């Protein structure tokens, strides 16, 4: 199975940080107050995506 990972749409991210509190693995952080950034720790559980008020996160399969 391909590895799944969260991807942030930077143009829609409002840098609110809701995703960082939702992620148990601390795999997503807000970069310089501009947008959220996903690290390699992400397992693609989509918790962040469901909480994101701007719907700026998608979980994609990466190869």
């Amino acid at each position: 199975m391909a590895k799944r990972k969260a991807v942030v749409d930077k143009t829609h991210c409002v840098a609110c940080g809701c995703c960082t509190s939702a992620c148990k693995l601390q795999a997503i952080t807000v970069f310089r107050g501009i947008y959220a950034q996903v690290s390699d720790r992400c397992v693609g559980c989509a918790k962040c995506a469901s909480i994101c008020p701007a719907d700026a996160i998608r979980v994609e399969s990466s190869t």
Partner: protein
Amino acid sequence: MKKHFYDYLWIASALYLILGFFNILFAWLGLLCFMIPLLISIFGKSKAYCNRYCGRGQLFSLLGQTLHLSRNKPMPRFLKSRIFRYGFLAFFMTMFGLMIAQTVGVFLNADSLKTAVTLLWTFRVPWTFAYTETALPAWISQFAFGFYSIMLTSTILGIVLMVLYKPRAWCVCCPMGTMTQLVCKGHAHGKTEQN
């Protein structure tokens, strides 16, 4: 997860709204919610206020997420667009300016003090019950009424958005959030990305 003191700032936000029903002068405390996020974004170059300390955001999370009062549906595309977000910020600042102008009017004795709270920039609600005459100049009370109007209005809008869409939907168009993100974007302009 370990709880920090700042995880309880929603209590302060709720208290703030309640105090405004008893004495309007407490509204002045709301300036903190304007100054702190801006100062953090200007000097700390981050949105740590939104990310950690915003009691209002926590309140929406609590109502929408913990108490399940939110439908948890995606927001309409238009409300998430930059045009709307920046437009709303401009509108908000214009209304803020008008509120300051009204305060100045009272300061200059050109206007009389209006003991009312204006909701959604339209509905004037008599609020004399939270007003007691003091030795303080009238403009201090006028500003308090104006500022509390803004705080209550944005809370009402935030609750509506929380119910209809995601718990923290307000954060998408929150003027403070948009403004601090713009400040951070300004700081990061021209810097190389970490990605």
